[in-house]
């Protein structure tokens, strides 16, 4: 946790420096307006760091929800190891301590020429710079039959909230000996290790409560993130409980039948007691509507300023962007958001630019007392975000090292969410 503290200290120093540079120039001028759409990790971080570093900027955050529940650590809630409340964060501190104008409405349209955003309630917001942090949406018809109604029977639980609660209820009411089928999505998707962390923690829950239950992962891929670490852990902790089938065997998931809770692949049909279907993903709806996404479904951005390559004056951060080597993780969104905030502050106030330092740090649970971690730094190279230095846990680490990682993860969560939501 020492490195976290140092890094955190570095960011705060940067923020203080910016404030000092900005203040003289701002006096007597009208404030520049930045609107941030989306109060997830990326959006909330941009808003906070802009508001904290540049008093000459008025920051408005548009987010329909009153509280945000983190996707990270939601697998702990799913398996009874954490309360839902512990994942939930409000926007009060951002409003009170940082003077951010928080509007609980949905943004429905962006007009880049007029520099306005239309809200669900009919009102309009004007901006000098716009930041869009739309998160993810599911690709239409990626899996035949998987519509809104089917999601209530076979939840995705890939946005933390009601879906996560539903999946937890289903797992709790499942009979011992039942089959839990997890459909894992194709790349790229939000949080690469998360489907497999979910399988691990559900296995741990089954071992405690339903020891005859089985888990079947039907993957859209032929390999997955940290596969060696997961498969080693599955053999050690849950022998014979988790079976993973690659797309090359099943031919891939093509459809579901919600009536029978069946998952249909090109080669076979699997009937589940509980099914968790995580479909293929793309940038959130607003990004698609506003022409911020290219044909890949994701948003191309400048890797230094995170300004859209398609719409000048609009910036994007988080899961929706084409992040190069940066995975779609909350910590990456947070790191991109800081670089984006400082770039916008520099543009609007004329303050000095700083080279962006981009990081990812993640903890992944294999069992309640067995976690692994990674730490990766990134920098822009030839218009793309490339990894520079990386640390990833190894298969042969001692159980004590893993126990320490599981404990460190708790501190990481608290420090990280404090950094975002105050």
């Amino acid at each position: 946790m020492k490195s976290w503290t140092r890094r955190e200290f570095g960011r705060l120093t940067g923020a203080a420096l910016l404030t000092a540079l900005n203040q003289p120039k701002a006096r007597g001028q009208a404030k520049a307006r930045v609107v941030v759409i989306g109060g997830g990790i990326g959006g909330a971080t941009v808003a906070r760091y802009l508001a904290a570093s540049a008093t000459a900027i008025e920051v408005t955050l548009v987010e329909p929800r009153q509280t945000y529940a983190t996707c990270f650590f939601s697998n702990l809630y799913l398996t009874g190891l954490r309360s839902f409340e512990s994942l939930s964060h409000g926007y009060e501190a951002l409003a009170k301590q940082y003077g951010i104008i928080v509007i609980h409405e949905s943004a429905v349209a962006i007009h880049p020429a007029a520099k306005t955003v239309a809200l669900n309630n009919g009102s309009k917001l004007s901006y000098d710079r716009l930041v869009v942090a739309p998160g993810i949406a599911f690709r239409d018809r990626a899996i035949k039959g998987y519509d809104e109604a089917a999601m209530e029977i076979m939840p995705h639980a890939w946005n933390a909230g009601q879906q996560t609660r539903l999946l937890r209820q289903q797992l709790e009411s499942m009979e011992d000996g039942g089959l839990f089928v997890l459909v894992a999505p194709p790349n790229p998707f939000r949080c690469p290790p998360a489907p497999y962390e979910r399988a691990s923690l559900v296995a741990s829950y089954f071992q405690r409560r339903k020891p005859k239950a089985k888990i079947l992962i039907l993957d859209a891929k032929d390999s997955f993130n940290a596969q060696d670490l997961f498969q080693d852990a599955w053999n050690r902790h849950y022998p014979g409980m988790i079976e993973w089938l690659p797309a090359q065997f099943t031919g891939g998931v093509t459809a579901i039948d919600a009536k029978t809770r069946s998952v249909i692949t090109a080669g076979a049909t699997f009937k589940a007691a509980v099914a968790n279907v995580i479909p293929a993903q793309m940038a959130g709806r607003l990004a698609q509507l506003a022409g911020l996404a290219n044909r890949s479904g994701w948003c191309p951005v400048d890797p230094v300023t995170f300004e859209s390559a398609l719409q000048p004056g609009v910036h994007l951060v988080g899961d929706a962007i084409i992040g190069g080597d940066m995975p779609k993780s909350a910590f990456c969104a947070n790191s991109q958001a800081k670089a984006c905030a400082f770039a916008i502050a520099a543009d609007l106030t004329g303050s000095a630019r700083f080279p962006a330092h981009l990081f990812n740090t993640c903890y992944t649970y294999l069992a309640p007392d067995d976690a692994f971690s990674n730490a990766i730094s990134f920098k822009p190279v030839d218009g793309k975000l490339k990894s520079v230095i990386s640390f990833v846990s190894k298969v042969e680490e001692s159980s004590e090292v893993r126990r320490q990682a599981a404990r460190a993860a708790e501190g990481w969560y608290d420090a990280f969410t404090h950094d975002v939501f105050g």
Partner: protein
Amino acid sequence: MTTPTPRVIVPNTAAKGEIFQVKTIISHEMETGLRHDDQGNVIPRKIINKFVCSYNETVVFSVDLHEAISANPFFEFSLRATESGRLDFVWEEDGGAVYMLSHQFTVG
């Protein structure tokens, strides 16, 4: 110790002379033979060392497996439909365990 799960995906029917795909995978507790237990003893190797597919008791596809192959070996191969009957799949594991699956197949 748990029972491995052998799986096959193969059509139930085919026209005479038609070439069809067979896919197999087995998930088991693999040991590389390179790891040590808490007392420092080598944990014996436990890999799938042989896979055989027979079509009406004639071997049509056979593989000897060694280290550095996927923990849960996956095979995809093609067969020609000649007559109705049975496909037998056999996996042999270090330590002598044998796992089997059979599939009835109709040539129409």
